[in-house]
């Protein structure tokens, strides 16, 4: 069996080829070390009834495993390092395939802003490699681990694309899905297939690569992903507006997004969420905080900060954070740390038009004590609600349905996630298409059966 390649397997030759042309951009601040978690996160907890854990180290090995499971019509749970096992609908499968041994960066061309990595490569490894060359992932992937009671830092790059949960910068630069260029994957027919490639522009055939994003491993097991990366900014700043009520805060954020100053983060933290910030100075203010981030060359950040303050002067005079503090603050938000794990609460993730965000929250707050964290200038709401048998699903879904958008239950006890719709329920025509797509990839219903929808 071929050994799993590690990051040493990076294509050094092709990197050397461009060494002369490539100048590493040095940010004007220290990029702090990334979380380096326990590398071998326990995938399986003792109380679970998993009888078989399979860790293929090569694509052919994964194919042969799935071929055997297909012959036996045996369902299987697909995981990376287990970071997402507490999210989505729980799997009932006794067999688990982990991509943890499919590990390592396989191609990195800083001058072409492109990287390929095997699906089980830990995200922290990828981000450290990128930072060493003055680059980063554009979409700030969210680590759901801490918010769902799983370990932090266990997310794999495959899991990033399988769930397509992007962070704050998504509002400016697009989602994980938007930056995926190509995949290799094995479907439920044990077929190894590829789609897309390593180039930025590619309209050759149906876009099967992007179509796998957000499918939570229910269609195919990703073995390798190729994605676009971007340079780290030279400088960053955060403007912090204080004490704005939700609706005014969202008005300020959408106004900021409507300027030409390329705001790369637009977050509103009402009082409760703000008090949980890791940044003690901000948490201690005891106020709702509205955050706007700028990232660019240093001279541009200075210029745009002044222009933005002027455009938003009716919302008050903001505090200003420097580059290092900005990096720390938004890294904190990437872990949804203001919505920490608790068995007493459930967590929803609501996607809507930005100005509808506060309306939806206000409507839900009529029924329950809910705490919000607004991202994407109001278009993404992380909503903490009291734990309940249905996690407040009927009230949440009604409030969203009336105003447009959709809601996903992120945190709840397994029995709750097994009994209510975790993902937005499908309309009949969408269910027909979704079932058809599932059957096209995985006709025996082997892969992550029930992880997204109860019946397929």
């Amino acid at each position, binding site marked *: 069996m071929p050994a799993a390649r590690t990051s040493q397997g990076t294509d050094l030759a092709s990197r050397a080829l461009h060494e002369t042309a490539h100048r590493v951009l040095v940010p004007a601040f220290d990029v702090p070390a990334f979380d380096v978690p326990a590398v071998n996160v326990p995938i399986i907890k003792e109380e679970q009834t998993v009888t078989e854990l399979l860790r293929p180290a090569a694509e052919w090995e994964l194919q042969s495993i799935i071929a055997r499971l297909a012959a036996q019509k045996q369902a299987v749970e697909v995981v990376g390092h287990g970071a997402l096992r507490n999210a989505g609908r729980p799997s009932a499968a006794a067999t688990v395939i982990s991509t943890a041994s499919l590990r390592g960066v396989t191609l990195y061309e800083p001058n072409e802003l492109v990287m390929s990595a095997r699906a089980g490569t830990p995200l922290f490894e990828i981000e450290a490699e990128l930072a060493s060359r003055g680059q980063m992932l554009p979409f700030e992937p969210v680590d759901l681990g801490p918010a769902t009671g799983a370990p932090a830092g266990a997310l794999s790059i495959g899991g990033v694309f399988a769930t397509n949960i992007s962070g704050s910068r998504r509002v400016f630069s697009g989602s994980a899905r938007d930056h995926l260029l190509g995949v290799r994957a094995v479907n439920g027919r044990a077929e190894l297939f590829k789609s897309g490639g390593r180039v930025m522009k590619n309209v050759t055939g149906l876009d099967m690569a992007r179509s796998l994003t957000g499918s939570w491993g229910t269609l195919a097991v990703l073995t390798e992903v190729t994605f676009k990366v971007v340079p780290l900014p030279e400088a960053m700043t955060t403007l912090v507006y204080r004490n704005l009520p939700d609706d005014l805060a969202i008005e300020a954020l959408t106004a900021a997004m409507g300027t030409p100053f390329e705001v790369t983060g637009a977050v509103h933290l009402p009082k409760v969420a703000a008090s949980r910030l890791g940044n003690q100075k901000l948490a201690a203010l005891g106020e709702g905080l509205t955050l706007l981030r700028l990232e660019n060359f240093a*001279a541009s950040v200075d210029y745009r900060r002044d222009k933005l303050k002027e455009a938003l002067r009716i919302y008050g005079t903001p505090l200003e954070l420097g580059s290092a503090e900005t990096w720390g603050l938004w890294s904190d938000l990437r872990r949804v740390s203001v919505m920490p794990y608790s068995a007493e609460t459930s967590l929803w993730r609501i996607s809507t038009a930005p100005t509808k965000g506060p309306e939806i929250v206000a409507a839900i707050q009529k029924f329950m004590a809910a705490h919000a964290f607004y991202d994407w200038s109001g278009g993404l709401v992380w909503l903490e609600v009291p734990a309940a048998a249905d996690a407040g699903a009927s009230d949440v879904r009604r409030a969203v349905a009336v105003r447009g958008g959709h809601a996903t239950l992120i945190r709840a006890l397994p029995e709750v996630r097994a009994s209510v719709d975790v993902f937005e329920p499908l309309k009949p025509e*969408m269910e027909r298409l979704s079932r058809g797509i599932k059957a096209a990839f995985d006709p025996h219903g082997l892969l992550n059966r029930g992880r997204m929808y109860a019946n397929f």
Partner: protein
Amino acid sequence: MTFVRLPEPDQGVIGRRAIIADDIARLIGGPQIIIDEDGRRAFETDALTAYRRMPLLVVLPRTTDEVSKVLRYCSDNAIKVIPRGAGTSLCGGALPAEDAIVLCVSKMNRVLEIDFANRFARVESGITNLAISARAGQQGFFYAPDPSSQLACTLAGNLAMNSGGAHCLKYGVTTHNVLGVKMVLMDGTIVDIGGAHLDAPGYDLLSYMIGSEGQLGVITEATVRILKAAEGARPMLLGFASPEQAGACVAAIIGAGIVPVAIEYMDRPAIEVCEAYAAAGYPLDVEALLIVEVEGSETEINVLLNRIAEIAHPFGPKSVVISSDAGQSARIWAGRKAAFGAVGRISDYYCMDGTIPLGQLPRVLTRIGEICAGYGLKVANIFHAGDGNLHPLILYDANKPEEAAKAEQAGADILRLCVEVGGCLTGEHGVGIEKRDLMTVQFSSVDLAVQMRIKTVFDPGWLLNAAKVFPLDASGAHIAGHGPGQSRAA
């Protein structure tokens, strides 16, 4: 250009032309149907004009409901349908067939809703690309993808082909700028995907639809992202003595952390033709020219352009011209945007659209020259260098069939080269009929089977835009009228 095989049309369907027209007239009204030969002739080809087919009928529905009625009727009666926007496809994506109805969405061209606070526009799909930006521009916003044909091409066509444009280096292509669509399946089912929010729920059906080349359904409405325009934008010209230097300079600019809005490339033949046509002020003593545009305030633009000039310095540019005013900027872009037309004035040409990894640029340019010389043909290269999307224009004389054949063969060789170096067959023009049978160069039979199963989920009868995108050898079994001995040359 006579190589692509097309299925034998179904004479039974052609014989029922008048009956079918009457049936559809009863569903959506007679004025929406073109049956006379002169009227149909206007739709016999798209921008790949070497191929022509008279459609069975042309239908111009006005609403999603009418599209649904027509498609359901066609589905029930096993009649093929060719969806069409403005017919500007460069790959034969909208080429009709004698036994197929052309369903043209051009009458559905309204802006339905525009919301500046939430930064989206909901429009009917027959609207032209430029009309969206014109409407959004009333408050300083714009719709980012800007294909060269943006004055004429419809959003429907942009969605079908996942169109890009000169400015997609910074802003992405169509798939990055669409939030939702309303579409009609072949059986008439109306489906809403996504909406005004950023991420659509469930399986990513938008990814299937955008770039599906009319294979999966007919999009009638779309919700697109609109963005606030930058304070200003200005280009600069960098001329080099060799393609290698220009290619290395592109990599150095991007590697230095600058992502310009556009980096366009022209070689000497293209420069000469464009300069003669547009008097853009291009240097005539260089082998390779880069047009690099950046955005921001006046000060930011000056800083960035000077920084780019510094980065370019080690590569020995023979010419560095920073545009000094709006008039000069407009002339620089007028030359680039008129490039295809300018080349068209001196010769017939065959435009290719492969994409390659940037690091392969010098090698590929050399090989393109060699390939074309091998067929005794000249080539002009004009392309989006920032993202490696090549547009070699192979020059030939359309009145000499053997030269046309050579151009097509040279084009195929170039596309094989693009795939060989790690790129792809098409970056923004699409597969259509033109590159259909080259798909096997890029994809294995399994890769294609995975795609074709999705086609079957959306369109079980394979009635939508038949005999395109997928190699006929692989898809023929699904397509009525195509079997052994039934195919023919165009």
